[in-house]
């Protein structure tokens, strides 16, 4: 094994296997490959989870349909939620950080790349194990994505589905914990010369905040699923209240920070996209950095707002901390709006997604204040109002920002441009689809429709809103297909991407598309770093020297 090492030369480090082969990808130590594997896997699983959602919407189109049986519906919503949270949004958030952060801070690779690859494999096997529940006799897990005991104990939900769910969650969260740790280590210790902490791009800062939360919160999830595993073996322990309420505390202690894990990197992406296509420096950099860190630290103290109706949490305290989140969120919106107001806007596909993110996520945020108010939450909790709120933050918010990021960085990662026409079709379908699907759910919730019900009666008066929501979901599906077509076209009939197709600001655009093995090379060296927008600095310098000459 070590003999091959002796043959490597300074000009061309020889990997143990051919770089382009399947093994070259699956055993790679290149952060870009591991990042792309993670992000790609999560996008494939997004299709799976989206398909489950489509089936559920079909079932709810009209009252008393029988597309899915009760039990199958319960499995579908459980797996939809679990896949989206544990296997799609969180891995995408951490994976895109893994891909971009070393590039943005001028590092050749992530620290401890083998641990990072281990974490990808833990994530992948975790997803496979969780999904394999569908092949179990009793079907997949059907206890909801937060798996409250005693329902999730072996007494009330026997069968392998729940066991496989527990194993899958444990594996993939362990993977995400390790991956976040290596990326954070890279950010803190492996930056290029000149890249001070306060010269890091906004996106990298969002990843710092994200990964700090992962380190603070994910171990608690491992403990919580450990308790659940104990209850699978000794279901009697959940006859005692302390274990039930204790599990809820532990779970939400993870469960709220993870919401921001699924949000911050996407805010960072939106900030980069807005600044790039506004053609200006991001406004209020330092305040944004501070607000991200404040947001992350506060996220550790709001978990009880999921438990207002339990009668066993200090509701007013959690209401206070939840409402305090208005401060960092307000700063973020102020800075993003100021960037847009003070810019020359170019409306590319990523910019459209980023602009739509602003009002759409805002709906999620403002209704978040409502559900963070106990007196209102007693009505909204576990109703469709909550479902609507939650999907406005995650689908209308994070998912739009995710696609802003995908359209923005796809040329960098693949070396090919996506088509603008298809991208815009995708965007408009999704704007219409998202709002048609989730806006009616607010009314459903206020009118008394509980979440997680497989059907309803004609006299309930839920029919119209549900029909509209299903139509919207159909538009989302069509939009998703347009996106897939866009990727296929881009790969089949490539339009070559230049190193910097967007006139962007950060270091990853200084290198080739896709970047070389160790990110920067003689041909694409790291430019001098004097601020959080080094490429913009270069352009401004060029302009001013040209102005002087002319």
């Amino acid at each position, binding site marked *: 094994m070590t003999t091959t090492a002796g043959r490597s030369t300074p*000009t061309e480090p020889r*990997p143990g296997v051919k770089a382009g082969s399947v093994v070259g990808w699956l055993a790679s130590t290149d952060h870009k490959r591991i990042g792309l594997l993670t992000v790609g896997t999560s996008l494939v699983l997004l299709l799976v989870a989206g398909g489950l959602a489509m089936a559920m919407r079909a079932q709810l189109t009209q009252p008393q349909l029988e597309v899915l049986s009760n039990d199958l519906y319960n499995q579908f919503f459980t797996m939809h939620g679990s896949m989206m949270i544990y296997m799609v949004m969180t891995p995408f958030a951490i994976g895109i950080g893994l891909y971009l952060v070393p590039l943005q801070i001028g590092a050749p690779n992530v620290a401890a790349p083998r641990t990072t690859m281990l974490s990808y494999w833990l994530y992948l096997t975790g997803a496979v194990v969780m999904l394999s529940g569908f092949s179990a006799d009793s079907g997949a897990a059907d206890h909801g994505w937060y798996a409250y005991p005693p329902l999730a104990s072996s007494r009330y939900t026997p069968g*392998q589905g729940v066991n496989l769910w527990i*194993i899958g969650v444990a594996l993939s969260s362990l993977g995400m914990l390790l991956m976040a740790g290596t990326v954070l280590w890279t950010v803190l210790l492996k930056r290029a010369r000149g890249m001070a902490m306060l010269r890091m791009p906004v996106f990298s800062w969002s990843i710092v905040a994200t990964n700090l939360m992962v380190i603070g919160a994910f171990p608690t999830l491992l403990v919580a699923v450990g308790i659940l595993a104990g209850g699978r073996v000794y279901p009697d322990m959940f006859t005692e209240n302390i274990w039930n309420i204790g599990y809820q505390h*532990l779970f939400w202690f993870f469960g709220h920070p993870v919401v921001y894990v699924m949000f911050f990197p996407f805010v960072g992406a939106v900030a980069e996209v807005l600044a790039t296509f506004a053609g200006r420096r991001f406004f209020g950099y330092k305040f944004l950095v501070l607000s991200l860190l404040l947001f992350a630290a506060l996220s550790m103290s709001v978990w009880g707002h999921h438990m207002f109706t339990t009668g*066993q949490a200090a509701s007013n305290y959690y209401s206070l901390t939840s409402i305090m989140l208005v401060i960092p969120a307000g700063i973020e919106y102020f800075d993003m709006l100021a960037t847009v107001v003070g810019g020359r806007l170019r409306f590319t596909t990523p910019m459209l997604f980023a602009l739509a993110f602003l009002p759409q996520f805002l709906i999620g945020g403002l209704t978040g204040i409502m559900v963070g108010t106990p007196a209102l939450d007693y009505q909204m909790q576990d109703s469709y109002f909550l479902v609507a709120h939650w999907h406005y933050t995650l689908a209308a918010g994070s998912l739009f920002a995710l696609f802003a990021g995908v359209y923005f960085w796809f040329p960098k990662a693949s070396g090919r441009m996506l088509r603008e026409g298809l991208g815009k079709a995708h965007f408009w379908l999704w704007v219409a689809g998202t709002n048609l699907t989730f806006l009616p759910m607010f009314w459903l919730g206020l009118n008394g429709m509980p979440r997680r019900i497989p059907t309803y009666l004609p006299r309930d008066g839920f029919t119209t809103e549900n029909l509209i929501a299903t139509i919207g979901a159909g538009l989302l599906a069509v939009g998703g297909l347009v996106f897939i077509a866009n990727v296929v076209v881009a790969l089949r009939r490539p339009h070559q991407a230049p190193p910097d197709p967007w006139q962007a600001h950060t270091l990853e655009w200084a290198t080739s598309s896709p970047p070389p093995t160790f990110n920067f090379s003689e041909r694409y060296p790291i430019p001098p770093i004097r601020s959080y927008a080094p490429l913009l600095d270069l352009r401004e310098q060029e302009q001013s020297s040209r102005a002087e000459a002319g």
Partner: protein
Amino acid sequence: MKSAHAVVGAWATGNLVLALILLFAFRPAGFIEQLLYIWSTALVAGFGVAVLLATRAGRVGTQRRQPRRAAAGIFAALGLAVGLTGFAYGWWLSVIAFYPLVLAAWLARGERLRRGTRPWPAALGDTEPAGPPRFVHYGSSLGTATAVPAEHAAHGPPAPPPPRPPHRLRKAALLAAGARAVVEMLRRRRR
């Protein structure tokens, strides 16, 4: 690393303040909430201390030594997955998990190049290696610096020896050695 200290410090202080507010102003019924605060702050602070120690040890700046492959990671993950699946299908599976884990441990050694291996293994792509690390704390305490010894990492990598022309004989010998290593491995596994 001042900003990193500030981040972790502010994080811990902020959460401590919040925990105290919870404890004295809102009087929770249980103790779980306080324990969770302490536990998570300890986790974040622990990571901060690890970063601090690494900084003190001078492990800062562009990392040049790179592993070649991550097969050990794959086997470790598969082993863990099979082992944990034992929770659903019986613990005998963890016996099977033993093999990939051992294989991973065995592979892990060879995947990272030994320190000092020549030529410098991780010249970055086709670039010259970047300069010395950006920041090295070297001295008995902050503020009192001592001269950096000649072989210290702060001076950057030692100059690579002049490249030797590839020699067929050497190649053949290496190939033979490699083949023998494989045969050895297979023989050992069969036992």
